[in-house]
């Protein structure tokens, strides 16, 4: 087994564990942190069913962003929707036999990669060109876009320019899943692609990518507007001793 294979095998175990443990911890923190007061941004739904609807529209159509700025909405929505198809398409490398619906969406997923990179490029252009957005950008905000675009471009490169041995790639990942380790092909595009993906997985729970679980816990969006009908009980975190009132 090559050094490269050993390194990537370890890397993907570490990355998966970090992503899983980090996200679980963060989500657990969001769930147990008290919400002392009712703070939905009104007008807000007056029933739990209404909140589910509001949240569904928010995470699938980016409702608030649409109200806010059509360009950010367009680039952001295209990127996220495309990313979804790209990710689903990649399930073919983790399932054997490939689920039929995954096989079905392969063409969509392949073209979605272009849309994904285009959306990211649009977001980056705004970050560089709009003075307000440039002002609020840290180096990490640029690097995050660079990383995502890098993943997209190396993926496209393998699809359209220099094909990689996808049978071997699939064997490698199935091997990881069933602890039956296989060789990873030495192909710089593939190796770069996977390195960046692993990096993204590791960064995820420590970065602004936490907006993905965060949105579901946002009290201004997920609370029901019924404080007069139903008393919202005051809660405090028991672990902080001096906060009792």
């Amino acid at each position, binding site marked *: 087994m090559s050094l490269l294979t050993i390194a990537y095998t370890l890397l993907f175990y570490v990355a998966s564990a970090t992503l899983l443990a980090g996200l679980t911890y*963060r989500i657990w*923190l*969001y769930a147990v*942190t*008290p*919400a*002392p*007061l*009712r*703070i939905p*941004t*009104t*007008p*807000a*739904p*007056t029933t739990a069913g*209404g909140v589910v609807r509001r949240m569904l529209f*928010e995470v699938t159509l*980016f409702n*608030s*962003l649409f109200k*806010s*700025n059509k360009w*950010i909405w367009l680039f*952001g929505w295209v990127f996220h929707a495309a990313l979804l198809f790209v990710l689903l398409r990649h399930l073919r490398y983790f399932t054997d036999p490939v689920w039929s619906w995954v096989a079905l969406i392969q063409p969509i997923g392949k073209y979605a990669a272009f849309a994904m990179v285009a959306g990211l490029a649009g*977001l980056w252009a*705004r*970050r560089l060109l709009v*003075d*307000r*957005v440039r*002002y*609020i950008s*840290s*180096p*990490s*905000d640029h*690097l995050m876009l660079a990383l995502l675009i890098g993943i997209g471009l190396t993926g496209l490169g393998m699809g359209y320019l220099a094909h990689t041995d996808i049978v071997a790639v699939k064997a490698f990942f199935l091997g990881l899943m069933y602890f039956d380790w296989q060789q990873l092909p030495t192909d710089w595009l593939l190796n770069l692609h996977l390195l960046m993906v692993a990096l993204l997985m590791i960064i995820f729970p*420590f970065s*602004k990518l936490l*907006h993905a679980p*965060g*949105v579901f*816990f*946002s*009290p*201004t*969006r997920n609370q029901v507007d019924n*404080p*007069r*009908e139903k*008393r*919202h*009980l*005051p809660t*405090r*975190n028991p672990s*902080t001793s*001096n906060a009792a*009132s």
Partner: protein
Amino acid sequence: MAEFEIPALKPYPEIPPIEIGTMAHSKPYYAKQEHQQKIGFPGELVDNWEQVAIDKMGELVDNSRALRVFLDSCVKCGACTDKCHYYLGTSDPNNMPVARQDLFRSVYRRYFTLAGKYLPSLVGARDLDQGVLDEWYSYFHQCSQCRRCSVYCPYGIDTAEISMAAREIMDSIGVGQKYCNEIIDKAQTIGNNLGLPEPALANTLEGLEEDIEDETGVSVRLPLDQKGADILLVTPSADFFAEPHVDGLIGYAKVFHQAGLSWTISSYASEAANFGLFIGSYDNMQKLALRIREAALELGVKRIVFGECGHAWRVAYSFLNTLAGPFDFLDPDYPVPQHVCEVTYDLIQRNALRLDPSANDDMVLTFHDSCNVARGSRMGDFEGGQFVIPRAVIKASCNHFFDMPSDTIKEATFCCGGGGGLLTDDLVELRVKGSLPRMEALKQVVDEHGVTHLAAICAICKSQFSKILPYYGFEMDQIVSLHQLVSNAIVLGNEH
């Protein structure tokens, strides 16, 4: 008139290019030792303030899901950058909601996140030092906690929550704001923000009764501390003195009179506005809220009704039940608390009031949705009632009404520029500049529809507009109370 440049009203609102530091000099007076201590904070900057502040930050984040989620979730997309009236009016980039949050988030990252601890410059993390504290004091007193940014944020991040936390941290190290903290002290010791003791209040209300009788020939009472009344009216203390607020109070009195409702004001809880909210202090907010509960129990009322007040209505509607409930001793047939607009609206629906809208024919009205009524509360039993009900009451009282442009009203409404504990003369530059978007929207309906007056349902909005309207070429009396319109239109007498 002013030592600063008054922004020009443009025919179409524009997003200004950023001008770094234009409002860095703006900061309110610091609270005196005496007031700090009386409301539970250190009198002056504590010795190891950096550590105390960081500890407090950790405690606040551990106790607020909102704060934790908001600090983690921002992706710096820029959607909020052109949504704050203070940014639009000042061009200072630190008045963009995300940048304001980042003043706080940068410190949070430095002390509470892995990336900030080891790679601070990569993620924009900063040590808390004197310079950062000064920036906090300046810019967290340039947020009126109006929640407009939270409408447009894809994750619902509410800068108000972060401003409140920052103010609470500053209070906890001995750096408080004079205006808010003096007022909280007054409200907790005397019962209202103006510091009006019971005799003065009684005297004022008697004077108003005489005024109404002189004007209408009808004896309308404004009872104080009347045990056994059905309704406790809790209203901002500005309603007792300031113009046009007092005309609104007269309006409530006439509505109660004409509907035959028994009501009273309490001298112990003679304040609706709860400034505990502005400084993010749960404990102070609760103390003020409990006065209302105590007054309701003491007077033996069956209902609680709030007068026209914006942030007060948010605390009343959204928080009162949590802070001072349960209110199972009140009449379960009515929501607790009720807004006076809800009371009037219900009476109008039931034809229990006779209104003659031609009494207001000398005015062409528009309505300013107060930020915290619009985005932090509701009226009625349906989503968006806080927009429908006040307009319905106005339309029943006036013949001429036009709304301002749709992106400046309802949930998109702009703050008056003086909310959230900023209604003080030491911040007048900020207040004038921050009202620019509202003034532009007003100008548009003045030009297009001949609007003459702006009606509001918030004590702060009313005071703020009285002060800043003249800066933009309007008259100070072009702001009216909503119930002032009702007061003009109501037909007093037996037949209805």
